[in-house]
């Protein structure tokens, strides 16, 4: 398990990470979400000891520097283009392999895994963003680490690449490893993450499962339409259930369809439409981080 405790980082007067604590469980994919400038990359760098700051992060109870072979503990992808542009892809990985006491034959294995075997002798300076990401993922996998820390690994990948990455990450976690992954592609995150950690302005906003985040959204609820709307409103009010009028019916929050169905039946109301409405992860995310967005777009008044 990765345990981050009271992480903090200050740049001059700005608090980039503010007393952040969370855990990343083995066997699960943990998503790391937050608006731009929320402190996701800084948090990952703090976890790895790349940046100085408060708090500590342990990997199986020990700091990364206390493990005898760090590359077997954690594999990282923090930036897609982190390579010398004129050093071949294979040589780039061979250097990382040497530093981690990993046999050179592993280099060809990971190049094969990420689909870059044919360009192993090419200089990555001319690689597309997607190919660079694949090289970064290969670097992360070199030491067969128990933990993967991936910062926006899907950036620049084509649809096939994204699908491959999603399945790869899920499989990797299923093999008894843990994957901690940040992404702006919320639809992708909803398909691969078991848990999500949401931060805003460096602070923890949520640390829970995707299902709970979506269920807790104000946009999740039940839509009900009946011939006698006012009677249904009174019934719901009597049971202290909150609702709002929506289209020709009511949108009810915090209850399941069967509860509404039963109440309507007991009240003798014919139900014309009853549907469960689930928010998307994107809607839930926007709701959670509404007060934490540092760089928000403005609506053009002229349009």
């Amino acid at each position: 398990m990765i345990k981050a405790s009271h992480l903090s980082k200050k740049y001059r007067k700005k608090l980039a990470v503010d007393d952040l604590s969370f855990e990343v469980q083995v066997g699960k994919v943990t998503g790391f979400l937050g608006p731009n400038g929320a402190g996701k990359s800084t948090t990952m760098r703090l976890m790895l000891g790349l940046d100085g700051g408060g708090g500590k992060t342990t990997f199986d109870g020990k700091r990364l520097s206390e493990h005898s072979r760090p590359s077997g503990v954690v594999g990282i992808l923090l930036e897609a283009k982190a390579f010398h542009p004129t050093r071949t892809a294979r040589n780039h990985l061979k250097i990382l392999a040497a530093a981690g006491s990993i046999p050179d034959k592993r280099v060809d294995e990971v190049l094969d895994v990420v689909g870059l075997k044919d360009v192993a002798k090419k200089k990555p300076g001319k690689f597309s963003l997607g190919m660079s990401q694949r090289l970064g993922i290969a670097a992360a996998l070199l030491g067969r680490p128990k933990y993967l820390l991936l910062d926006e690994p899907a950036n620049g990948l084509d649809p096939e690449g994204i699908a491959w990455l999603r399945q790869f990450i899920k499989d990797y976690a299923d093999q008894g490893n843990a994957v901690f992954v940040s992404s702006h592609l919320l639809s992708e995150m909803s398909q691969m993450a078991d848990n999500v950690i949401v931060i805003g302005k460096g602070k923890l906003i949520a640390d829970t499962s995707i299902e709970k985040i979506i269920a807790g959204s104000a946009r999740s609820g039940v839509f009900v339409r009946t011939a006698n709307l006012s009677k249904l409103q009174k019934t719901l009010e009597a049971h202290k259930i909150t609702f709002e009028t929506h289209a020709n019916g009511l949108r009810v929050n915090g209850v399941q369809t069967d509860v509404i169905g039963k109440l309507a039946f007991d009240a003798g109301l014919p139900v014309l439409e009853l549907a469960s409405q689930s928010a998307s992860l994107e809607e839930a995310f926007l709701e959670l981080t509404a007060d934490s967005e540092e760089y928000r777009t403005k609506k053009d008044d002229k349009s």
Partner: protein
Amino acid sequence: MIAATKAEIRKLLTVRSTYIIFTLSVLLAVFFAFYADGLRAGQTVHDPSKLAGEVTSAISAVALLGALVGVLLMTHEYRYNTIMYTLTSSRNRTRVLLAKIIAVSLFAVVFSLVLAVLSPSLAYLGIHVKGLHLVHQVFPVWSLLWRSIFVGWGFAMLGLLLSVIIRSQVGTIATLFLVPSTVEQLLGLLLKKNAVYLPFTALDSVLQHNKELTAVSYGRVALIALIYIVVGWLIAWQLFLRRDAN
């Protein structure tokens, strides 16, 4: 430690700049030793220390070029952000720094040795091709050897430690070239004989043994340069341990 050193050596050997700098240095040696001091030797063939002078001139001329290899090894890490891989694959930053020092030192020793052997050999060849004959030569092998290696290594260390402190590629290269060629030259006008207490001047004096500084032995100027290198490394080491890796 061995793994980190192996990785650093691989870094040196897998970029074009190492080979370009090495080749350029050899070409300069060929031009100056073989052509300028060999084929066009003239009356200098009567100088009993001509070949010894070839060694010191060659090292003095290209030591800064050799130092660039170390500078690029370090600054490329920050420029291309590979420093994050380097630091996370090692247990502590001191080991990373030691590995870089070892790798650059090995390069500097090989670089200095090649030039120390090549330059007098090429000059000798040029003189013979021209049909001239050298007078009996005074060639203090061991003195020339340790001084050549020390100066080559010293420049490489100063370059490497400056790159650890400055981190910017352009900034480090500019500092490495401007300090000995301009700053110390200007200070030398003020300090006169005491200019030998400046780092690059001290290092260069190990080879040149400036006539104005004859009171100071090779060993002493080497010690002055070594003190600068050690103190510089203590500062660079502390900064490397404490600063964010970006």
